[in-house]
């Protein structure tokens, strides 16, 4: 009986493997080729940006009387570990006119109390304390309290470089009529020394989980942000650092309460509304790295984060399924959104399905072991090519890691990413999607902060 069943299973797996091998290989080729193309597009954009820094008008903006004012909104929930350096950094940005609005979303760890250590008496600091109701409502509260023409939404655990506002709001000065939103490049700050809320020395984190996320962030921001921005199809601005025109933000109703991917949802809504109204507008990404954030170093927190991200991705893509393939939404509807469906949403499921099928085929003797390893090497090797290309772009445009040791670690992280990390995150992402399909309750979860490393290497959290 068992032999008979095994025989049938072997036949089924063999048939499935035979039928799917070309589509699977095709998918792997397509996804990685599209990544590579986006990296190349992003690379040209980054280089272009880097070559124009001198005459970009940043110096003039700093002394400009008409430089648009910015309200920096920091929603905070139980961020006592990192809130002081984060707010200090916000208060000492180089920008002619701005205010900082911290919206405490009902923290229970004394976040508000710690804010008294952060005020500097020069830049306007507004603290709004409210009952806990989620990040979206916290940001909306901040938008209500804001007084400037531009609104920057910054995570409370993000650290900004001194020129961050000048850099990310510059596209608004260059094109104040069409520009409605810009996003900034976010990098990993774990274990980087922080003095007075500033990352003073960029170095690789000590944890391998964080190290892998360094190369992952680098690749993801070049791919999903700069690449798409250059092609006019940017549909995701990170919640960690984005700048929006306040009037447009108010017009579209601010962030959506209850959304798990509220940053993605907001940009999709901007595109949809403005295109529906037939308005000409621009959403742009600024490739210069100016925002630093702490990434999870525990598997548990990372698991929760990725599950939430993918669930948010699915819910937003589903909510805006009407945009998919519609010519009226231009490159967003015809290229960017289909790409996200095919290569972001489906990727973890297809990757896992491919792994299971190949694993099963190898176990049952349908696929020989050598073929299995050769195929895996092609699939993941192409991924490593993409990551290394992103690293090359970074070295050419805005290199941040000075040490040779950091380069060695980053190269190893490129390899290590494929040894368990990718598969685990694929599983967690699929879990997030599944939870949404089953209608499980949405959980934001808490990100346990360890605080940034102080100048002397101690933690300040």
């Amino acid at each position, binding site marked *: 009986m068992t032999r008979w069943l095994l025989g049938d299973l072997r036949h089924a797996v063999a048939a499935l493997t035979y039928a799917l091998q070309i589509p699977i290989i095709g998918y792997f080729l397509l996804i990685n080729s599209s990544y590579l193309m986006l990296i190349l597009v992003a690379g040209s954009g980054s280089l272009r940006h880097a070559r124009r820094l001198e005459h970009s008008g940043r110096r*003039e903006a700093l002394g400009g009387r008409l430089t648009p004012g910015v309200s920096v909104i920091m929603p905070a929930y139980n961020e006592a570990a990192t809130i002081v350096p984060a707010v200090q950094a916000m208060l000492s940005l180089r920008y002619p006119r701005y205010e900082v609005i911290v919206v405490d979303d009902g923290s229970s760890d004394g976040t508000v109390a710690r804010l008294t250590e952060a005020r500097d008496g020069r830049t306007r600091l507004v603290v709004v304390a409210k009952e806990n109701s989620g990040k979206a409502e916290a940001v909306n509260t901040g938008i209500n309290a804001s007084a400037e023409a531009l609104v920057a939404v910054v995570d409370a655990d993000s650290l900004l470089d001194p020129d961050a506002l000048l850099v990310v709001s510059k596209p608004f000065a260059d094109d*104040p009529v*069409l520009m409605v939103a810009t996003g900034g490049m976010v990098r990993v700050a774990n274990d980087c020394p922080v003095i007075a809320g500033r990352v003073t020395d960029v170095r690789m984190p000590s944890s391998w989980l964080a190290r892998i996320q360094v190369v992952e962030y680098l690749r993801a921001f070049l791919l999903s942000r700069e690449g798409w921005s250059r092609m006019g199809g940017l549909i995701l601005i990170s919640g960690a650092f984005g700048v929006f025109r306040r009037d447009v933000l108010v017009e579209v109703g601010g962030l959506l309460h209850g959304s798990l991917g509220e940053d993605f949802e907001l940009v999709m809504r901007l595109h949809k509304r403005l295109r529906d109204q037939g308005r000409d507008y621009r959403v742009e990404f600024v490739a210069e790295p100016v925002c630093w954030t702490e990434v999870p170093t525990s598997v548990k927190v990372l698991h929760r984060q990725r599950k939430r991200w993918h669930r948010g991705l699915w819910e937003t893509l589903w909510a805006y399924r009407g945009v998919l393939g519609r010519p009226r939404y231009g490159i967003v509807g015809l290229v960017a959104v289909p790409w996200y469906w095919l290569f972001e949403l489906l990727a973890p499921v297809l990757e896992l399905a491919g792994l299971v099928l190949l694993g099963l085929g190898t176990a049952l003797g349908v696929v020989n072991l050598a*073929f299995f390893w050769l195929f895996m*090497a*092609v699939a993941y090797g192409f991924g490593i090519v993409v990551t290394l290309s992103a690293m090359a772009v970074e*070295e050419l445009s805005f290199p941040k890691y000075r040490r040779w040791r950091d*380069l060695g670690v980053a190269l190893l992280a490129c390899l290590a990413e494929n040894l368990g990390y990718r598969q685990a995150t694929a599983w967690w992402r699929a879990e997030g999607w599944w939870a949404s399909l089953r209608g499980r309750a949405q959980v934001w979860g808490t990100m346990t902060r360890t605080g940034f490393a102080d100048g002397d290497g101690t933690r300040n959290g």
Partner: protein
Amino acid sequence: MTSPSLLVAADLGIGLTCAALALLVAVIKLTRAVAASSRQARVAPYRVPVLSVAAGGDEDDAASATLREVPDRDWGAVRDVVVAMLGKVRGDSARTLVRLLDARGEFERARSALRSRRAIRRARAAYLLGLAGQQRDAGLLLPLLGDRSAEVRLVAARSLGALGDPAAAPAMFGALGLVRGQPGIPIAVAAEALLNFGTGAVQAVIEAMGSADVTLRAAATMVAAEGALSATAPRLRQLLADEPDLDVRISAALALGRVGGADDVARLAALTGAAQPTALRRAAALALGELGHPDAVPILSRLLSDPDIRLAQHSGDALVRVGPPGVRALTEAASGSGPGNPAGRVAAGSLAIARLRKAPLVPTEPVSSR
């Protein structure tokens, strides 16, 4: 089944590409490090003379002489340091650096580069000439306002602003319209440049206020508001009466707050009426504060209880700006603050903020409020 030999070939190809990319990253890093170190070595002997000139300490001209004699092979690196420094200093120090760059032929090269086929070279040249601040270059930069590259047009506008030659004002307004079928320079960039032209540009500003192009009117009112050009007051009153564009009306209201007089209190007060657009009401309240006339006090006091909380707050701040009569009105309103008196809470808030800002004429004792 896919041929294993094909997979082996693909693996080999990918492996080689990975190795090549890793090597490329390392080579880029090494090249950058070597270039930075070489640059540093070339600049090191001249860093003190550059700082000496920039700090205005080159009284015997020795540092300038040293810099004029920098060998050509080192000049590229030193030049970048000098140009960067020029963006940070003013007065005699800047003039000395400009003379040095001129002596080294940098400006002549930049003037030639304005005709380069490459947009980035034209933009860099325009930037350097703007940084130099020599008005004689305005004539060379003006044609770039119609350049085929938007980037060059933008840099040229900023540089013309830096030169501060008011003769460029009409061309600057002209550059706001369509250029070769593309949008002109951004309003804020043009307005910033026009502000640098000072009162010499006032005639062009007044003329632009009467333009049929709303972009020109918007830029002109921005300049009038920020530059406090009093000669524009009659035109601003006219715009407030018959301008169809809301943004222009808002700018006109703010401008009139800066340059208007007692007669304008009623005009601005009418704009705070409930039937007016919210943004215009807020701008008018701020303008009344800028105007600083005591006649505005009763109007602003009434607005303290407006349902639009931002308008109420602006009115409170405006009362502080009016001076003693405004502060007295705020103090009075704050003394009656309570849950049923939103105006009192707004007034107490405005006084508290004014106290934090150490605004004059605000009583140092906190006003009791709940």
